[in-house]
């Protein structure tokens, strides 16, 4: 058996523990999939794989147990998936029969979002697909996850970009019955950004994380669902050396800003990546260039909305592995 492993890996196949056998990774942008694709995925698992599937932590499917000999055939078979789940949302796919054109930039993952979840502030699936359209295919290793709200169920805090939905809550005193449900909830579950003073609710804009729970709590719609924004946390990671939490980069960023900065990432990587390494992840590039450089380049040409706040500096800490517990 002979093939270029780099090519096959870019083609979203994996080099596995079993020399003869590969595993195919199927992207599911935003983690949302039409059920009809399941028939095809099952067929591939049954006919080419070992009849099982792994659901990836990025919300894709991995089909293990595929013979390397079959990989072109499998590529042809998954054409409808590339056609429907990538090309149709705008991703440039030259020939869907050739399989995935890249695997470096990972599947854009997303929580279930406001199509279902009461807490979500936006349609994560839609934005995931929009971002997928802009950044895929691309070989650079970038991980993006979209969370409907700052609760971050999708765990964007361990991604290169965690994009968390925010909503500006607008208070209408004339509709407030002073039940303080929003205040109590914010104290208990959020950041104590609300207080009840002079018989009205006062919002500390500094503390407010835009989760929108006050809106959800209110029995009279005294809290209006205002502008839709995003918090962007960056450069979280697991990994063997220095697992660390992503930290806030932008708060109250507009959808356009989010899309623009994500698009800008690739130029930044292009300029700074250490090509002597197999694949340098963006977090390590930022470690090298420093945050101010990253910030400057990532914001180049981005028209910031007036509400948007930017971190002056970021200290990721995390912890160093390889130390006494």
């Amino acid at each position, binding site marked *: 058996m002979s093939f270029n492993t780099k090519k096959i890996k870019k083609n979203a196949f994996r080099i596995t523990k079993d020399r003869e056998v590969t595993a195919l990774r199927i992207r599911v942008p935003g983690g949302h999939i039409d059920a009809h694709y399941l028939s095809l995925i099952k067929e591939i698992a049954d006919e080419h794989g070992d009849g099982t599937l792994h659901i990836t932590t990025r919300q894709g499917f991995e089909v293990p147990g595929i013979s390397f000999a079959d990989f072109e055939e499998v590529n042809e078979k998954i054409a409808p998936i590339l056609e429907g789940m990538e090309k149709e949302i705008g991703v440039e796919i030259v020939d869907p029969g050739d399989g995935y054109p890249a695997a470096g930039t990972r599947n854009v993952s997303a929580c279930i979002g406001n199509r279902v979840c009461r807490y*979500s*502030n*936006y349609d994560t699936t839609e934005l995931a697909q929009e971002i997928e359209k802009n950044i895929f295919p691309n070989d650079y290793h970038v991980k993006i996850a979209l969370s409907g709200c700052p609760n971050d169920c999708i765990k964007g805090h361990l991604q290169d970009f965690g994009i968390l939905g925010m909503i500006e809550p607008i208070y209408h005193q*004339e509709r*407030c*019955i002073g039940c303080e449900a929003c205040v109590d909830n914010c104290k208990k579950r959020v950041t104590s950004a609300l207080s009840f003073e002079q018989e009205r609710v006062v919002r500390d804009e500094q503390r407010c994380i835009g989760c929108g729970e006050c*809106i959800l709590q209110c029995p009279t719609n*005294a*809290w209006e669902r205002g502008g839709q924004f995003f918090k962007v946390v960056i450069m979280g990671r697991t990994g063997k050396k220095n697992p660390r939490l992503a930290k806030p980069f932008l708060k109250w960023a507009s959808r356009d800003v989010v899309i623009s900065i994500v698009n800008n990432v690739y130029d930044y990587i292009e300029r700074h990546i250490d090509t002597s390494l197999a694949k340098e992840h963006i977090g390590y590039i930022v470690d090298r260039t420093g945050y101010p450089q990253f910030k400057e380049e990532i914001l180049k040409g981005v028209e910031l909305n007036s509400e948007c706040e930017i971190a002056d500096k970021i200290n990721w800490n995390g912890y160093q592995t390889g130390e006494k517990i």
Partner: protein
Amino acid sequence: MGFNFSKNEFNQLLESLDQEYQIYAPVRKKKKDSFSANDLITYDLVKSLEEIELTAKSKYSAKEIVFPIRETLFHFVEGEQFMASDTDDKYIIFLRPCDRNAFKRLDKIFLENGPEEDIYYKRLREKVKFFVIECTTGFDSCFCVSMDSNTVESRDYSAFLRFEEDGVSCEVNDQDLAAEFEAQAKEIDFEPEFIRKNKIEVNLPDRDKLTNEVFEHQLWTEYSQRCIACGRCNTSCPTCSCFTVKDVLYDENKKSGERFRRWAGCHIDGFTEMAGGHNFREEYGDRMRYKTMHKIYDFGERFDFDMCVGCGRCDDVCPEYISFSKCINKLSTIIEEGV
């Protein structure tokens, strides 16, 4: 007098009425409900037929126009009290029969209960003309027929309107308005129609069979497990009339301030709290019992009809999926079958 309007003509009528009246109707506010991207159906000013939302029930009733959620009673300036002014505005409110009937309940409390009229309610209420929206199908959670509030007597509305595919047919009772209607439309025969059967029927408990044991039934303790005391059933209710009065002195100048009232709800913590902190009905199930009895028993004992008009809004908004109509039926069954 019956009239028929094309849509255009009806819009002309609205334009004409708009000169003199604030016209309130249910509208659809895009993506403005609590959950993101959900539309809020609520009362607001309209200027055209197209703005009126006729396909969905409003989350809140028209109550808030006449009994504002928060209403200043007095302004305080250096200890002197000044009654808050009202406006010269007159109002037209588009509403369905249940909601029109709800105003009869509010009228009872604010104008007839106790020795004095509620001046604040009254001064607004007097300026309102009701345009009843014909409602023959209702919505899933409605049970107005069971609550006898599916119909409206003609003295209780200025106009009764049937919204049709290509226009509006209506009846006008109000002589003040007749001229304006005539100006825009042709006369027709019009007979209001009312819904005669809801998807949901409730059986009101037999008053005579109500025993003390019913109050202690596990029905209510079950609700203690479910109800979270959020008060949405109160705030969405077109007949809930409770309020709390509060004073405030302004931060900027503590010599100025106001006394205002705002809606209160018997499900919400603090409703019964007395000076010193004692509360009655700490258990949420007791609040459910209290409200239930109030809506379908106590009010009726005091006046001549039940308070609940069966609009079903409390069912629509309960985050814990508690159904008031189901509660009534459970209660009736329990009473019927003996505790």
